[in-house]
């Protein structure tokens, strides 16, 4: 069995230098993914559309069970065929991923589109040396010979900040710490200089102090290589300062989508607000209770009628329970939300846009960029737009 693909073999995909002519790198349209189970069909992803520009970062945020991981894997086409129903289209760099044969997909995976997994403990093969796990991609996609690939692997490990990489290439995953393993995983994902990296909760399994290092590393490498990143996370704080655009998912659907500063500054969807409130902040007085979102994510086999967030929404009205709000634009064209009574300055509105008289139970002030990250991100690293966005700039860095 040979690892290497035959040179100049048939069906070699050519990738248009997408993005140069203004076309986005990734366009997902009306993606649906369902699983057949013993109890019924789970609609894990239910009509999602999004775009990612070249070199851009898109954050996908949601609670566990919101379908964000399934969405990431559906975009890649990485889900099993058995008992999975898919529809919708995924355009990537001039190609239609959803129409590709498994053969063709394999030419894309790892080469143009790669993935960083949540748990570096389980996502690295425990019985293969880490060097080998990097070189197999290099040899497959870049047709390198063994010594060339070995040398490249050392360089890759060096670039992700692993000390004495010449020695470490011969190590096994269990000999490395969690943070080191995640660095190895990043090295693997970036080995063939992909255009898009899917990072599925890349820091969830790591210590808080290591989390920021890994995310910074990822951002640095992203800028260097000008690649796009989809950052999937349950933590709005993670994407707040790192994503260009943010998509908030709930029960398989997008409920709000906007550029990061717009989302934080002008939140329309009560669910997004609830997510923000659940982030602990340094500015909070000690002993203050965290805002948990009451209730649980809905059953995706029998989703609630009307707005899927309605059973948990503090501002729920009859209309919310009866019909489902469409995803519509707000003032600016790039801000989308799905809510009948969107928040304006933290206060729910009537359909006409008139501010309700009813007082809001949560703090009405516009939410600053969550600063749980303030300790991890040096002030000079914070995006320049932040000061303008944040009316209470003093809160950010204590």
């Amino acid at each position, binding site marked *: 069995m040979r690892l290497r693909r035959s040179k100049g073999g048939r069906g070699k995909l050519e990738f248009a230098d997408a993005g140069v002519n203004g076309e986005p790198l990734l366009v997902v349209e009306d993606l649906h993914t369902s699983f057949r189970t013993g109890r019924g069909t789970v609609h894990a992803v239910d009509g999602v559309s999004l775009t990612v520009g070249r070199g851009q970062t898109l954050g996908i945020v949601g609670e566990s069970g919101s379908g964000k991981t399934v969405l990431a894997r559906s975009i890649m086409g990485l889900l*099993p065929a058995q008992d999975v129903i898919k529809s919708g289209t995924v355009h990537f760099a001039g190609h239609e991923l959803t129409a590709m044969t498994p053969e063709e*997909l394999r030419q894309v995976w790892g080469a143009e589109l790669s993935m960083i997994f949540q748990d570096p403990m389980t996502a690295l093969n425990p019985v293969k040396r880490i060097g080998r796990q990097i070189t197999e991609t290099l040899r497959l996609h870049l047709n390198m010979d063994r010594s060339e690939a070995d040398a490249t692997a050392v360089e890759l490990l060096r670039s992700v900040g692993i000390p004495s990489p010449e020695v470490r290439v011969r190590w096994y995953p269990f000999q490395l710490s969690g943070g080191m393993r995640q660095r190895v995983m990043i090295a693997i994902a970036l080995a063939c200089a992909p255009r898009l990296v899917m990072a599925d909760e890349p820091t969830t399994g790591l210590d808080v102090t290591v989390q920021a290092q890994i995310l910074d590393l990822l951002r640095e490498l992203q800028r260097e290589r000008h690649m796009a990143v989809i950052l999937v996370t349950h933590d709005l704080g993670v994407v707040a300062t790192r994503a260009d655009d943010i998509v908030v998912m709930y029960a398989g659907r997008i409920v709000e989508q906007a550029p990061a500063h717009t989302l934080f500054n002008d939140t329309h969807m009560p669910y997004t607000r609830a997510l923000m409130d659940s982030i602990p902040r340094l500015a909070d007085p000690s002993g203050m209770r965290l805002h948990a979102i009451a209730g649980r994510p809905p059953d995706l086999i029998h989703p609630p009628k009307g707005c899927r967030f309605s059973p948990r929404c503090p501002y729920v009205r009859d209309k919310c329970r009866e019909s489902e709000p469409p995803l519509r634009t707000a003032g600016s064209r790039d801000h989308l939300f799905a809510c009948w009574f969107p928040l304006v300055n933290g206060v729910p509105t009537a359909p006409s846009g008139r501010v309700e008289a009813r007082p809001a139970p949560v703090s009405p002030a516009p939410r600053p960029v969550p600063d749980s990250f303030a300790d991890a991100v040096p002030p000079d690293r914070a995006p320049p737009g932040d000061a303008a966005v944040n009316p209470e700039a003093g809160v950010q860095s204590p």
Partner: protein
Amino acid sequence: MPDDRELSNTHAGAQLLSDRVPGSAAFDELVVSRQSESLASDDILVKKPLGFLFWFALSWVGLVVILALIANLLPLPNPNYQNYSAINAPPSIHHLLGTDDLGRDLLSRLIFGARVSLVVGFVSVVVGLLIGGTLGLISGYKGGRLDSALNAGSFVLLAFPAIVAVIAIVAFWGHSLFKITVILTVAVIPLLYRVVRASSLSFANRDFVVAARTMGATSGRIVFREILPNVIPAAVSFGLITAAGVIVVEGSLAFLGLSVALPTPSWGNLIANGATNGNLQINPYIMLWPVLAMFLLLLSINLIGDRVRQRFDVREGLL
């Protein structure tokens, strides 16, 4: 090429690899219960029907047991009676399965021969479970010095190839049905001990046991009321498969002429007689019936054991 897709990506069994210690713990693995967290975990709650094969297997074992029990009451000729006027007779009304090279009735020999296999197989496992299982239950729960000693002892005993030890002992001690049963019982004790110990160990620190302990339950009560019921599925399913193994060993010994003394019939020596002395060419029935009966018996016992394992979700491991 639909090749890639069925490599599904759920997390079931993710922890199985990490807590796996090879070699020494081979036996411990097989009873560690599986905790599935797959996307389709709901399906596991739906119990698979036992199926036609299970009932067929159970019927066959039941039939063999009943026939062996009431063999004396059946209108069968004496299994050792040599009818020289009907040597190598084909199946007929008088001899339903035919006769052998000495004119003995094959059906009668088959039914009486079943007694040996069943007695050896089931007595050794039941006694083995009573002794080895009790030791394993206590040693797995209590731990400590007793556990270390028994554990080391069982390793040493299992380091021997059982068949060689059994043949050697048979050579010096003799081979009556009683002695064969005793020897094979001793041989299965360390095996059953290990299985039950591993299972007991896996329950010893579960919440419900800890809860019982904090409520002041005595060790004896915990072992027999809390742990024992949970260990039973693994013990039964492994016990059945061990019984099949013991029947194979007895059959092998009988085949080699080292089990019950001739002319007492046993399926192993019936097969040996059918396969040697030129009988295979002249009268293949002599071999055919015991081969079929043995095949079906082993198949049935294995199948029942496997269904028990599936039903109670005992991991396959070395079963």
